[in-house]
């Protein structure tokens, strides 16, 4: 039971709430809020010393953010 773990869980919870009940209800706000639980999860992984997983997770999160950003750009361009 340590601070990192608890903090991670708290941020995870906050982040998930933030994504689930997003204000204002736009794609961009949701996308930004989506980063919050990621950092919470990072702290949880950190608490268990899962560094390799942590690194990959952060990189892949950025990549999936980019994928969605790309999709939204296509959308803006075509609408």
């Amino acid at each position: 039971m340590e601070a990192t773990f608890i903090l991670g869980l708290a941020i995870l919870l906050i982040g998930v709430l933030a994504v689930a009940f997003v204000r204002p209800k736009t794609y961009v706000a949701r996308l930004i809020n989506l980063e919050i639980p990621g950092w919470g999860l990072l702290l949880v992984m950190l608490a268990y010393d899962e560094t390799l997983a942590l690194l990959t997770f952060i990189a892949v999160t950025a990549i999936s953010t980019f994928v969605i950003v790309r999709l939204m750009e296509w959308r803006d361009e075509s609408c």
Partner: protein
Amino acid sequence: MIPALEIMFGFIALVGGVSAALILDYYGKLISLGILVAGVIPFIVDRGYLDVAITVSLIAPIATIFVLRVVRRADA
């Protein structure tokens, strides 16, 4: 890390997280996300994973820049 420090940095992270969730403005959200990262980094460093801290602090702005691309479009 002494508990007082843990509380302070944890508090920074929490403030960042909560404000990122509550602020309505996109730029404000991104700035709050930066605050969240600022709170998280000392925990990584404290465990001795300096390489992870370096990578994470380099990747975080990249993710923000990705998001800024759509923020700019949504804003304009």
